[in-house]
């Protein structure tokens, strides 16, 4: 009896777990096995449950048309429809199908880690990584400071591709960001679907690079749609509404990093650890040198290209010399360290931590963000400011 009950729970759980994407994959499996009737039944059931899943209709069209005549292509739309519908609409659906299939078939290897996530702070329970080439968002859970893949979703990105540089370019930024807020469905129009999570584009680095624009969000889709093509947004990261709701369960405002990259780089754990350890050592040395009040040693951690946004290196150095000279003692505590490699930039890492500064004159605690870069084999600070 108990066994039967357990089985029942298992069956209903697995039925729930079958996402539309899983089911679409099953349809293609039937096609590959040449069980076309089964494929049609499966796609019909999928459409029944998700009548707004346009891609499923395209597949249904193909399966029906294949009964009438040989297909020329996937998404074999022809005739009048072609005159009234822009070709890119069909291409969009084809691209979505490819992206979804590829994601289902090419799973990341279990023993590899995302190279971008060097270290997670204990309070960061999750980190989100966007792989633009795969149109995929990966959710990693923090397991003892190491990322562990727990879920991944199809995403729509900017119409004009990646690397946002100016307002209105309809591109998605590349970089390391953090979720800055939650906008519930009730405060938004239907266009954003189940809700939205704004991120902090442009971040300090973007501003320094002269990048403009704002309002880059993770958000849902209008009720009439299940999903949008891979390249269709104005720069936002768009998820199916059920997927956005799932992601929402992982997101914590101001804590959850969103790393957007051309491609997620996967590396062996040892390689990631070596990189982490080398930067962690540099960070510790910076802390110790600051505490020692040897200002020259302390300032040697800063790059010649350093900027705090308000001060360049010279101004920063002058200020620090003045402050340090007036102290009889300094204690610096660093905790909750997180480190993320910046996509596209070589040896460039965003480091966040809680800084506990005490001195003979002044004490304060703050959340800090630093950008570290490796110059001539040594880690140097390029930016420093409040997080």
């Amino acid at each position: 009896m108990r066994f039967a009950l357990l089985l029942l729970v298992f069956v209903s759980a697995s039925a729930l777990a079958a996402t539309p994407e899983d089911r679409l994959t099953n349809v293609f499996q039937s096609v590959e096995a040449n069980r076309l009737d089964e494929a049609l039944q499966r796609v019909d059931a999928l459409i029944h449950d998700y009548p707004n899943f346009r891609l499923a209709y395209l597949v249904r069209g193909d399966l029906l048309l294949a009964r009438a005549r040989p297909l020329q292509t996937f998404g074999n739309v022809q005739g009048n429809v072609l005159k009234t519908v822009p070709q890119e609409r069909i291409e969009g659906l084809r691209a979505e199908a490819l992206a979804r299939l590829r994601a289902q078939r090419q799973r990341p290897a279990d023993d590899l880690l995302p190279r971008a996530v060097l270290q997670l702070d204990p309070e960061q329970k999750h980190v989100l990584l966007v792989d633009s080439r795969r149109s995929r968002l990966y959710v990693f859970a923090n397991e003892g400071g190491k990322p562990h893949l727990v879920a991944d979703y199809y995403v729509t990105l900017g119409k004009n591709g990646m690397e946002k540089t100016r307002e209105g370019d309809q591109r998605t930024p590349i970089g390391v960001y953090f979720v800055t807020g939650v906008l519930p469905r009730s405060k938004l129009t239907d266009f954003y679907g189940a809700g939205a999570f704004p991120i902090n584009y442009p971040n300090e680095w973007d501003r320094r690079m002269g990048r403009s624009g704002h309002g880059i969000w993770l958000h849902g889709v209008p009720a009439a749609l299940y999903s949008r093509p891979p390249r269709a947004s104005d720069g936002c990261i768009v998820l199916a509404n059920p997927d956005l709701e799932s992601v929402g369960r992982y997101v914590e405002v101001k804590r959850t990093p969103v790393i957007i990259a051309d491609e997620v780089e996967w590396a062996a754990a040892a390689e990631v650890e070596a990189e982490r350890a080398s930067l962690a050592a540099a960070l510790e040395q910076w802390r110790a040198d600051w505490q020692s009040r040897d200002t020259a040693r302390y300032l040697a951690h800063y790059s010649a290209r350093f900027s705090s946004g308000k001060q360049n290196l010279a101004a920063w150095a002058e200020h620090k010399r003045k402050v340090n000279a007036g102290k009889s003692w300094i204690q610096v505590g660093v905790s909750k360290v997180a480190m993320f490699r910046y996509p596209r930039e070589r040896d460039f890492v965003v480091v966040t931590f809680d800084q506990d500064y005490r001195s003979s004159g002044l004490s304060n605690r703050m959340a800090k963000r630093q950008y570290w870069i490796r110059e001539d084999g040594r880690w140097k600070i390029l930016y420093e400011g409040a997080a």
Partner: protein
Amino acid sequence: MQIFETPRRGLRRGLVFLCLAAFWCAAPARADDLEEASKLFKAGQREQALERVNRVLAQKSGDPQARFLKGLILTEQGNTREAIEIFTKLTQDYPNLPEPYNNLAVIYASQGQYEKARASLEQSIRTHPSYATAYENLGDVYAKLASQAYDKALQLDSTNTGAQQKLSLVRELVGSPTRVAAKEPAVAVAKPVETPKPAAAPEKPAANPADVLKAVNAWAQAWSKKDVDGYLGAYAKDFKTPGGEARADWEKARRARIEAPKSIAVAIESPKVTMQANNQASVTFRQNYRSDKLKSSSRKTLVMVNGEGGWKIQEEKAAK
């Protein structure tokens, strides 16, 4: 294949006749009436045909042959509701006959109810796996269903296209779309009737597509009746003969071809008239030709001109 090119709803193979010898062993009087009704129907005299069939059914209400013919006549008369009733009842009473299923499917397809058409045809094939007509029609139905699925995939909103068509109609009526749009665009779309008429009315009354169609039907009827003079009279003086041969040679060849068979039946299916000018039109349709020697079905386009003797054929070509 033209399936997507026009909103043609008909299937490649239209309604079928029931030709089962087994049903002909009835009383001679009834057979005569039925044969007469069938002839009348084929000659396009539906009213009379219906009268005869009803006479047969009055004597023998369950007669499948007569019920079948009545279904055909009603379909042609546009009384699809009753026709569906008759064919549905036939499938229940004679589940092994594939033809009633097929004809039901043809009617459903003509109404755009392709899922129902599909179910009927699949049933028809289940009863008779070798029934070729059902296979052909099923292929067409699958293609239509595919087309509908593609429309959904690409978010073609039929209400939108309706609005667009209305809008273009308004533009045609008004001439200058900007003038209307500037005033009240919403009203202009919603109430095409109330939009102002263009100041300059056309001098001649507008050509009526129905007249063009009438001429095409007359041509097909003359052909079916083997009325060669009537048939040849449907062609314009400047008719472009298909091979560029002299008109006299072409006429001679046609006469021979039409007189040779004992019987001819030409049916025009899903005609679509496109007005090119006030005195020129093209008509595209499926031509189902059947004689005692040959059976063929093809898509055809007739280029028609309106001259002194009304609408005549100027060119005859296979539709692309």
